[in-house]
């Protein structure tokens, strides 16, 4: 029988559903609403089936076309990738549920197809083991995202979509140039094969290729100063899409950078180079978020800040730092997605994205506001929520290297956390303690929108109060990455 614990199914099944949505739209309008839920439901199951396999072998490799990796494209799921795949699948599942109640604009079936395609692309980016395939996955994600950002077709979303498209297209081309440079140098495209064959290249030669790949992925990954599209695009997109864009798409791009850096360009200078970007991203994201009047824009800038934070944790370049980065990724993905979903539900009720209009919402939409508060606390790193554990780990890891650079970075991180606290608390106290000037007709969000929020909220609470398995898993994933188990195991299992 077919072995269901096959990474390729993670991509192929949702893709099949994408085409099924297109196919079914000829007969039935409503089928498209529910197909994504089934697709990502299956994906969650497959991801869960992969967990024991990955824990046993350290890595699961899946070939295509019946050939061994350097010849054909392979999909690799190791602990870290699995970690992200689970997040992406669960988010996809949950947000698909949200969509059913949320999306009420035509053409729905196109939206669902693109939405499914978006998450498929994200998962694809995470598990692919081939550089050019990474580019393709990158483009799948981007194209889907472009279309979804413009979904409302109003002034703002079209502008945001176009800006995003131009920057994304440039990024994609630069990424492709970088990949081609590596191909020219090695004659192969498999990441691990490239890593081995490019060993004799000088750092200087590799660095240009790296910089191009970094810029290409960095545009999607919201690294300063390449992230200017993000604060426009996230608010413009429908909230369910923003939640995916913020929650996992930038993370997937960052993950790709982490993976490529770790496998092919593992030089200390590069980590220094990256740290610079990470800190800038953190600083500008958080400071800009402070000034926002539009709630989704604020969350979008906060995403930039958070990205900077976990990217910084990665650039510490130690097992502890990586563990912190992964924990922060989980924290950010779950919390920020939840925040966007909640905010989306609130915008439906309030009819505006202006923060001033959210006054007194805490008394009207109690459940939503409660989860909003939890998400924000977690992002700020307030105990006992999960963000506290991740921030603790990152700071601890950073100060393991007690040089002036690290101490300075830690001071910056904590200052920016204060700024983050400043804007989140500003919003929270306005919502919970402010009094609206006129009484408005605001009801609690509809059941269909509340269910996904509650699911994510409980996931967050669960990992907050019982973090041990997540901590352990993140630690294993981090030490795997540091020990280059990815390469070693892939060589052993895949017969590269």
């Amino acid at each position, binding site marked *: 029988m*077919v072995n269901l614990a096959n990474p390729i199914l993670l991509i192929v099944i949702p893709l099949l559903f994408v085409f099924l949505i297109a196919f079914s739209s000829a007969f039935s309008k409503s089928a498209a609403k529910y197909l994504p839920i089934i697709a990502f439901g299956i994906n969650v199951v497959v991801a869960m089936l992969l967990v024991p396999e990955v824990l046993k072998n350290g890595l699961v490799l899946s070939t*295509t076309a019946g050939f061994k990796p350097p010849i054909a494209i392979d999909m690799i799921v190791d602990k870290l990738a699995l970690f992200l795949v689970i997040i992406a699948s669960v988010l996809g599942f949950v947000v698909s549920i949200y969509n059913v109640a949320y999306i009420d604009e035509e053409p729905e079936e196109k939206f669902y197809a693109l939405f499914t395609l978006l998450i498929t692309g994200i998962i*694809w980016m995470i598990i692919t083991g081939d550089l050019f395939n990474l580019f393709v996955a990158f483009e799948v994600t981007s194209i889907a995202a472009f279309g979804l950002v413009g*979904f409302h077709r109003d002034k703002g979303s079209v502008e945001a979509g176009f800006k995003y498209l131009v920057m994304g297209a440039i990024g994609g081309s630069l990424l492709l140039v970088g990949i081609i440079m590596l191909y020219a140098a090695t*004659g192969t*495209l498999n990441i691990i094969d490239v890593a081995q064959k490019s060993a004799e290249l000088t750092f200087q030669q590799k660095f240009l290729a790296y910089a191009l790949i970094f810029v290409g992925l960095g545009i999607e990954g919201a690294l300063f100063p390449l992230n200017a599209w993000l604060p426009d695009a996230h608010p413009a997109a429908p909230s369910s899409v923003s939640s995916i864009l913020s929650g996992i798409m930038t993370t997937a791009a960052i993950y790709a950078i982490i993976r490529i850096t770790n496998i092919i360009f593992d030089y200390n200078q590069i980590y220094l180079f990256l740290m610079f970007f990470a800190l800038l991203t953190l600083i500008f994201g958080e400071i800009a978020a402070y000034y926002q009047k539009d709630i989704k824009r604020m969350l979008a800038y906060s995403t930039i800040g958070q990205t900077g934070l976990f990217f910084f944790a990665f650039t510490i370049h130690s097992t502890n730092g990586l563990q912190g980065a992964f924990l922060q990724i989980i924290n950010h993905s779950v919390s920020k997605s939840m925040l966007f979903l909640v905010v989306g539900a609130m915008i439906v009720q309030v009819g505006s994205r202006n923060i001033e209009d959210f006054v007194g919402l805490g008394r009207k939409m109690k459940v939503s506001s409660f989860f909003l508060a939890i998400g924000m606390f977690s992002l700020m790193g307030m105990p006992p929520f999960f963000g506290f554990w991740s921030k603790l780990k990152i700071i601890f890891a950073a100060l393991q290297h007690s040089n002036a650079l690290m101490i300075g970075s830690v001071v910056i991180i904590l200052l920016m956390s204060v700024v983050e606290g400043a804007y989140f608390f500003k919003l929270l106290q306005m919502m919970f303690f402010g009094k609206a000037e006129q009484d408005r007709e605001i009801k609690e969000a509809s059941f269909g929108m509340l269910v996904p929020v509650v699911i994510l909220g409980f996931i967050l609470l669960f990992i907050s109060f019982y973090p041990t398995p997540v901590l352990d898993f993140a630690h294993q994933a981090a030490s795997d990455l540091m020990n280059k188990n990815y390469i070693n195991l892939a060589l052993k299992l895949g017969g590269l």
Partner: protein
Amino acid sequence: MIRKIVYSIFLATIVLSLVMFFAAFPFGQNKMSVGEYYLNHGVAQTGASNIVTSVVVDYRGFDTLGEVSVLFGAAAGVAILFFVLGENRRKRREQVAPNFIVRVGSRIIFPFILLFGTYIFIHGHLTPGGGFQGGAIIASGFLLLYLAYPGTTVNRSRLSMVEGLAGITFIVLGLYGLLMPESSFLYNFLPKGELNALLSSGILPIIYIAIGFKVAAEFAGIIDDMMCEVICRGGEK
């Protein structure tokens, strides 16, 4: 002006660094490593005489799946952006054909274009060409039809059915490979046949045909959307 000069210098720097990099890998030099394997074993392993096709559809077939998805995404994106409500769509019926010569000419050429496109994607594994090229040619036939008869509409639901069905075919063919002992996606499970015969190289032609249909349907859809945008909403703000 200063901006232009500064950025020109910047771009020159980038070009210079690229030149420096590629100086180490000169033009015309054989840089193959995996490519060589394909050239040497491609025919035996895939049965396709066009090695590029065997790379595109077989060895790197997964890229092609992605490419198909990208195109699908773009078509869906365009459809979203140019979405027009049903009643506005009817405006197109009122359009008059522009020119007698175009009308008659296109009516004559259209079947040949279709035939040519079909030829291209059916012979993708033997000659240069394939699903994308064939599909694009077929879509150009539709474009011609639109030019001649702006009032014609394609049945969009049938188009998306074709799109979906072609995509499903691709994936189901691929998934069938998982049932094989190799348990590998896109495994070429059909007999390879004889080199340079039309019915050879297993699933490759089938996939290319599916891609051909898909690409044709998607491009036709995009063209339809753009036509509709111009005609149904021309001048509308």
